[in-house]
């Protein structure tokens, strides 16, 4: 059992400090809305990574949780007039409930079947979102008010919003970190490495997997709700399977199963998309190329390779 203070993980706290410093300084140099987008995706990718990296489950329909939370948050903020905090919590709760339902159905199957089941269920929910009146289909929920956080912080002020989003991201990040480095996380690791043995030791593997799944979807929901407030828009793009593919790409590129990998991966992919946006469909080609290259020759991802270089887990 490792605690954060142990010198074996000291380098991770160094990395964490570097990350926080960079993120705090960044909005004064880089367009803050771009950074906020990257932060939301970074949290989304971290949540996804919890499943694939530490439980070994490839959830290929994870965008459902991002997008549906976005819709609920947008609806709560715009139509019910809820404040930003409660709206995001509502979105996350919705994602968690959805996650429970999907998890119960999908965890019955292993490996590939799990992936395909999550994908198919996600597609079902996409079509539901396409037709449900409250989502306004192709137009999405527009002009979502950002509101005042706890009645004090005016989120329409970009810098204020940025630091709120940063705080949300760091909170989510730390929750995941804590979960990984806890007894719960150890059991997950055991299940991933040898499920029959874990079961023979008395651990109810399915229950652990389900809990991890729901935690992941809750945090993906937080990311989705926050994103809806930042962009003041909830749209079909966030529940489409291409979004599910993107988060897989981010995590793969950053490093599956590493702590900082998803964050790095998210920033890299979002930056890439920004630069290539002028070129339209080249973005998809480049994304596909990164997938292929990563799977064939770069399976550890950026942070994974870095960790290998310094011979310590990152």
């Amino acid at each position: 059992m490792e605690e954060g203070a142990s010198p074996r993980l000291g380098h991770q706290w160094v990395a964490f400090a570097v990350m926080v410093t960079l993120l705090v300084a960044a909005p004064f140099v880089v367009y803050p809305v771009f950074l906020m987008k990257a932060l939301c995706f970074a949290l989304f990718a971290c949540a996804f990574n919890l499943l694939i990296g530490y439980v070994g489950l490839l959830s290929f329909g994870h965008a459902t949780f991002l997008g549906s939370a976005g819709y609920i948050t947008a609806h709560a903020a715009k139509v019910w007039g809820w404040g930003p905090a409660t709206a995001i919590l509502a979105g996350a709760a919705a994602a968690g409930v959805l996650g429970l339902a999907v998890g119960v159905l999908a965890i019955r199957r292993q490996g590939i079947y799990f992936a395909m089941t999550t994908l198919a269920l996600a597609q079902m929910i996409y079509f539901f979102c396409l037709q449900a009146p409250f989502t306004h289909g192709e137009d999405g929920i527009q002009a979502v008010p950002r509101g005042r956080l706890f009645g004090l912080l005016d989120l329409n002020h970009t810098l204020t919003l940025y630091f709120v989003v940063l705080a949300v991201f760091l909170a989510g990040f730390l929750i995941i970190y804590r979960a990984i480095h806890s007894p719960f996380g150890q059991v997950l690791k055991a299940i991933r490495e040898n499920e029959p043995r874990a079961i023979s030791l008395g651990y109810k593997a399915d229950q652990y997997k389900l809990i991890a799944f729901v935690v992941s979807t809750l945090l993906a929901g937080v990311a989705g709700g926050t994103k809806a407030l930042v962009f003041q828009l909830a749209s079909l793009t966030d529940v489409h399977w291409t979004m599910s593919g993107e988060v897989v790409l981010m995590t793969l590129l950053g490093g599956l199963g590493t702590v900082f990998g998803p964050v790095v991966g998210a920033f890299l992919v979002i930056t890439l998309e920004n630069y290539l946006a002028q070129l339209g469909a080249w973005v998809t080609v480049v994304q596909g190329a990164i997938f292929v290259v990563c799977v064939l020759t770069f399976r550890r991802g950026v942070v994974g390779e870095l960790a290998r270089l310094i011979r310590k887990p990152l």
Partner: protein
Amino acid sequence: MIPILGIPPQALFGQLLIGLINGSFYALLSLGLAVIFGLLNIINFTHGAQYMMGAFVAWFLLQYAGLGYWWALLIAPIVVGALGILLERVMLKRLYGLDHLYGLLLTFGLALIIQGLFRNQFGSSGQPYTLPAQLAGGQNLGFMFLPNYRAWVIGFSLTICLATWFVIERTRLGAYLRAATENPTLVQAFGINVPRMITLTYGFGVSLAALAGVMAAPIYQVNPLMGADLIIVVFAVVVIGGMGSILGSIVTGFGLGIIEGLTKVFYPEASNTVIFVIMVLVLLVKPAGLFGRAQ
């Protein structure tokens, strides 16, 4: 015209027929996927893109070589199948020892590349492809007007599906294939070139997708994203039918097409999701799929 269950027969039979046509495509595509998965244990996400390439090859042939539909039916599957074999030799081979998920991710990435390249070149609206003259026009069946081409689609895909089933389940070649799925090392020890069989099987599965693409070209627009959403429905079909079961894919494909058609009549809002709902139900009751074997 007396309404059946409150629906005028024209609407009912018309949608049923469209359902059968959709079912033909589901069956052809899930057949290809099932064949590939059965032997290679790879989920070929590129299947949708290969279906699209089949349609585009047909379009190219018409546009630049003046070769019509019947040539395309022959040439496109061969061309796309060959490309598939190239893919298998160069990339998929390297992943056989790894977790199956990497195969899924690789084929997903390839699908993105192929679809992106085509989209760059052609935009995302469709290219027109004219119906072959021999199949133009239609029959007025009284309760609806049935275009000849759509009748041909149903007939031809049924034939292909049954022929494939026959080859795999009833011929010696098929027996080797099935044996190699169960125990490749043993079959290799008997002197059968298993790697080559795997390569050819992948090529065959891919050419089935391309064939479906050629057949789709005259009725759906030939556009770069035509396979993108379809592939996910086909995944659901395969999960429902049972992975690796040939008969399962065929029956499920046609069956789900019909069910989707009926849903369009009685409850159109659910027509997009009914296949996924059925998948959920099957997963709850029989996780290995209707015709599958528990692995």
